[in-house]
Structures are given as structure tokens and as C-alpha cells.
């Protein structure tokens, strides 16, 4: 009965799932495809807080510079990054994955549960331009929580 109703809901609400917004422009055309797909750099290498805290973390300018001091330092975009580090002015990336303020999401719990990054972020290793893949709607979150038997208590995410 319950499953039937949930399924009915999913169908009824299906038409109303928000579509992901177009990707924002970035100060430097950073390619995940190049870094992850071709050079096989793991996600946690740059997003270093993923398994430790709520926030995955944006690589620090020092992290970028750490490699690019030596690698591809002659390319103009890389020079932009290196120059920003040396000038002490971090790049301002435009956020791709935005959750409302009243949602408390933690990367750490999801990684601990054995989810792969791609399950929510899509085939990042194939993306030249990072864009949002899932709708990031509440229904999307809840559907996965239900499927995996995770808590659907409101206070799991809202508090």
C-alpha cells in the first residue's frame, strides 16, 4: 500500500521535477575531464574535506599552484591561476551545486555510506564544463534516501 502510494506520488510529481540550471561561467575554464578523466586525479586530492566534513572543499590556490608550478605552467589559463596565487588573490569560482540555506547536507556521511561521487555529481570525469546533473530537489533526495533505507526524518536535513 505504502509502496504503491509512494510510486503514485513519484509519477504524479515526476512531471514537476526541476531541470538542472545551465552551468555558470567560470573565471578559468577548468576542465574536470582533463584532470579527472585523462590525468586520473582522484576527487579527494583536491576536494580534500569530502570524507572529513560536511563540505567537500574547493582546492586552495596553493594546491593548484603546487602542481602547476611545474605542470603546464606555460599555458595562459594556468598562468592566470599561478598569478592569482602569487598575487594573493584567490579566484572566485561560481558555485554549480547550490542547496537552499535550510538544507544541511554533509558529504562525510554520504561518503561513509559508500556513495560514489558520481552518483550525485554525474560523470564528472567526462565534463569539460562542470554542470549540475541531478535536480537537487527534495523529492530527488528523498527518493534516494528511501531506496537506500536512509532516514527520512525531517530533522535529518532540516534543523
Amino acid at each position, binding site marked *: 500500500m505504502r509502496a504503491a*502510494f509512494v510510486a*503514485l*506520488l513519484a509519477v504524479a510529481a515526476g512531471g514537476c521535477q526541476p531541470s538542472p540550471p545551465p552551468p555558470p561561467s567560470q573565471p578559468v575554464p577548468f576542465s574536470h575531464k582533463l584532470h579527472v578523466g585523462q590525468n586520473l586525479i582522484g576527487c579527494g586530492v583536491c576536494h580534500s574535506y569530502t570524507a572529513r566534513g560536511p563540505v567537500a572543499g574547493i582546492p586552495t590556490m596553493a594546491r593548484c599552484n603546487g602542481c602547476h608550478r611545474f605542470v603546464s605552467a606555460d599555458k595562459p589559463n594556468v598562468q592566470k591561476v599561478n598569478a592569482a596565487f602569487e598575487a594573493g588573490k584567490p579566484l572566485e569560482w561560481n558555485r554549480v551545486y547550490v542547496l537552499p540555506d535550510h538544507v544541511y547536507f554533509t558529504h562525510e556521511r554520504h561518503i561513509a555510506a559508500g556513495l560514489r561521487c558520481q552518483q550525485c555529481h554525474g560523470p564528472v570525469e567526462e565534463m569539460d564544463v562542470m554542470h549540475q546533473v541531478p535536480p537537487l530537489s527534495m523529492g530527488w533526495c528523498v527518493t534516494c534516501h528511501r531506496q537506500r533505507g536512509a532516514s*527520512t526524518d*525531517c530533522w535529518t536535513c532540516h534543523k
Partner: protein
Amino acid sequence: MSEPGVLGLFADPAQAAAAVRALHERGHRDVRAVMPAPFSVVVEALGYPRSRIDRITLSGAATGVAIGFAFTIGTSIAWPLVTGGKPIVSIPPFVIVAFELSVLFGATVNLLVMAITAARGRRLRAVPFDARCSDDRVGIYVADGDPAGAEETLRSFGGEEVRRA
């Protein structure tokens, strides 16, 4: 309308009723009336059976009850949240919703059925239009039998402007 019938207008519903009875006696089976209000004398004289649209109406109400319970119980189970220590499926409050939905569905179905049956009746048992029949005249229309005899009978009961239409 294959052949024209006879229409007579009456100022007095009682006379119209008498005319209807006389027409029935004369063997006219298809006597129709058009009137601004449901004058009981005329309705009685026409002698049609009571409308049975109430059966559909009541089944609409029953559907409302069923939907009411299914909806309230279903949505409560779909995402069970405990409030005030009460059971997830709390029937007493759901009765209220089911009742309101039974009235809502009953009344809506009643309206739809009435609209359909009235429109159907209008079409199947059409009466020539005369604006006075919505004002202060009762129109009696004889659609079968001998038109001349019908005209005669209508006139004899005080029918005004008896004409073939």
C-alpha cells in the same frame, strides 16, 4: 423533428394541466410542456415518472467517501509522521475529510448529471421556442397524433395562439 407538432400557450397553468389531461385522453402520447416554473398541476398532469438521477448522485457521494479514506490513509502512510502520539492512521479525523469529500463529490456529480440529463431532455423532447414560455405563459406542445385534433383540444381549454410549429 420529422413533422410539425402543435404548440399552444396558456396563461393559467391549471387550464394547461386540464388541456394535457384532455390530450392524453384523446390518445396523444407525446405531449410536452415548456414553462417558466415547475407548476405542480402541469407536472402532475403530464404524469412522467420521477427522475432517477439520484442513483448516480449517490454513487458519486459513495465515491467521495472512498476517495476520502483512500487519500487520507494513503498519504499518511506514504510518509509516516507521528504527531501528538497518535497513530499514523487516525480514522476519526479522516471521517471528517471523507464526509466533506462525499458531499463535494455528490454535489458535483449531481450537477454534472443534471446538466447532462437536462441537455439530453432538451434535445430529445424539444419544444419550439417561444420567449413567453419563460415569462408568463405555459406552452403545451403536442408532437404526435392528429394535429388538427390537438389544436382543437388546446383551444378548447383556453390555449392562446395555438399554432403548428
